[in-house]
């Protein structure tokens, strides 16, 4: 973390040829003094490094990634707040302005249809983020349910669920999604969500299963069983609250992957189809005009990259906060 690695000037003497460049070193105050021992009064330990003890959301990593994520969510929910050139992406289009380069009035330029490209890119956020969040939410619920059952009951329940996971793992994720998407001729956001959600749960189930198996044997679960608690109560009150956080973090980390999977599938032509507006579609359309109108490719690519990066960083910040061992 950035605030922990800041160098305190003078911790390692510049003349020391063995002085490591790694800033995390033993402060010189702890080393045995080289010369005659300094008088006790002048011997002072270096003050301890400032540790950020403020609230979690004020840590830089959370702040930056959280802002990106919040902005993207807002953009997906209310694109009209950001788009200043008409209430929808096809307003004020003029085919005469096709592929016009960025200008002061149209900062992102115009697309093939002569529509304002900035508005289009803003409206494209909705598809990506909807897919990312809904797929992750479905996968989270399935993972939590199946993983808890498999981990808690073990035996044949576990065998059944684990073998189903193994089979789903056997299919490459993208290939399986392609096969499913091929079955539909017109593909909306919900079709893509269905195809991605169908194969996104096995990793989460396995993860949940292992964390439930660990919690199941804790002493407080035994104590509850000794009090006469039934399985339902033990799962709801003890197992789920103590094993759900790691899964939540894992799934947050996965949102970025789902968003890029959607864009990738759309780009190769088997994801969303034209009435929809999405970054993947815009990238696919820009392919043909890459030398004439590079702005068509650049702007959606920047938005896609920043969104994926924002969600991945947010997931990592959450992981570091809740599961310091998993670094």
């Amino acid at each position, binding site marked *: 973390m950035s605030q922990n690695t800041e160098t305190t000037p003078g911790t390692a003497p510049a003349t020391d040829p063995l002085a490591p460049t790694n800033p995390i070193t033993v402060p010189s105050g702890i080393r045995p003094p080289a010369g005659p021992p300094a008088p006790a009064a002048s011997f002072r330990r270096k003050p301890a490094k400032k540790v950020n003890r403020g609230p979690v959301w004020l840590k830089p990593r959370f702040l930056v990634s959280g802002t990106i994520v919040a902005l993207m969510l807002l953009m997906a929910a209310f694109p009209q707040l950001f788009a200043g050139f008409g209430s929808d992406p096809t307003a004020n289009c003029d085919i005469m302005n096709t592929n016009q380069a960025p200008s002061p009035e149209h900062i992102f330029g115009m697309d093939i249809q002569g529509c304002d490209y900035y508005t289009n890119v803003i409206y494209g956020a909705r598809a990506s983020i909807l897919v990312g969040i809904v797929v992750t939410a479905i996968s989270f619920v399935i993972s939590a349910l199946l993983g808890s059952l498999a981990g808690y009951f073990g035996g044949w329940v576990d065998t059944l669920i684990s073998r189903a996971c193994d089979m789903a793992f056997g299919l490459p994720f993208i290939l399986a999604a392609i096969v499913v998407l091929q079955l539909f001729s017109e593909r909306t956001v919900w079709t893509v969500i269905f195809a991605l959600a169908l194969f996104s749960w096995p990793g989460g189930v396995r993860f949940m299963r292992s964390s439930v198996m660990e919690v199941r044997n804790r*002493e*407080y679960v*035994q*104590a509850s069983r000794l*009090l*006469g608690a039934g399985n339902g*109560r033990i799962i709801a009150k003890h197992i789920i*609250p*103590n094993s759900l956080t790691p899964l939540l973090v894992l799934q947050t980390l996965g949102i970025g992957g789902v968003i890029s999977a959607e864009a990738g599938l759309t780009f190769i032509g088997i994801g969303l189809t034209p009435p929809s507006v999405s970054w993947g579609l815009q990238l696919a359309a820009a392919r043909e005009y890459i030398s004439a109108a590079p702005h068509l490719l650049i702007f959606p690519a920047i938005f896609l990259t920043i969104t994926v990066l924002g969600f991945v960083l947010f997931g990592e910040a959450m992981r570091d906060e809740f599961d310091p061992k998993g670094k």
Partner: protein
Amino acid sequence: MPTPSTSTQTLPGTANYPACTPLMEMRDVKQHYAVHRHLPIGPRKFVKALHGVDLSVHAGETLGVIGESGCGKSTLARVMAGLEKPTQGQVFFRGEDINTLRGDEKKEMRRNIQLIFQDPYSSLNPRMTVEQLVSEPYEIHPEVAPKAGRKAKIKELLELVGLNPNHSDRYPHNFSGGQQQRIGIARGIALNPKMLICDEPVSALDVSVRAQVVNLLDDLQKELGLSYLFIAHDLQIVRHISDRVATMYLGRVVELGTYSDVYDSTAQPYTRALMSAAPELRRNDGNDREKIILQGDPPSPIDPPAGCRFHTRCPMAQAICATREPELIAVGDSHEARCHFAKDLAAEFVQRAGA
């Protein structure tokens, strides 16, 4: 909070339990765990954690259990609490086998047998407040405390175990080890149990708070008429709290008697070695015990030695010890020891006391 009068009242369905029957009894209990085989061939092996244990605990009594690590003490606690079903043998509570009970009878049994764990922190759900932890027993058994009076009851309970009731909205990690163990004890006694199994309740605690927790358990016993099975490594604490003491070695009870029998006229070489390892325990004539330093590690509980299980390390082993396993021999009114020479050993003490 339970008062002595409510805790001694007869509970429904138990009126016909005769007064002379021990509160809890284990008969020939064996607990074997299968060892994982790397290849699916060859004979199955078992860790014989308990190998034929007979013990009984009477109402209001404390039975201390001592023995080195791996001798089966914790398995004994888990089997007695009903967390594990023994491979063989029965565990009786008021004359009924706890592993055959179903429905209401099982619930009733659960109310009456509680366990205090060794590690206080890991026995408390870190996401529950003290109030939630202590009220869990009442949520499972709402007949004990109706919802209306529950808050007051929890307050009384926390006061009884010496915790500040104003701290009931704090989480376990806000408390010290001793306080955490008090929370565990409060949860354990919430349902007015008859039997409290303490599996090394003070081993994880600071020496300075051990005495407080042990005295708390002692006071609660007097106040609530509890019976304890008290497992500990600290021989002095066991002597302090126990009415009777059992020594275990490799899954078997090797000596059983009142605390003065076992501590002062030890009639089993393993118990003697155990006692001599505690420097603070002196013989009843005030002299230091002779030091018996055992060689080697305890044998594997997978293939225990033939004959007497202790003969491989016993300083006084004879030929007979390797071939015949001794029974528990009565050496006094209430004193039994599993050694071929138990009577001689007991006599030695009598002589010394007379001299």
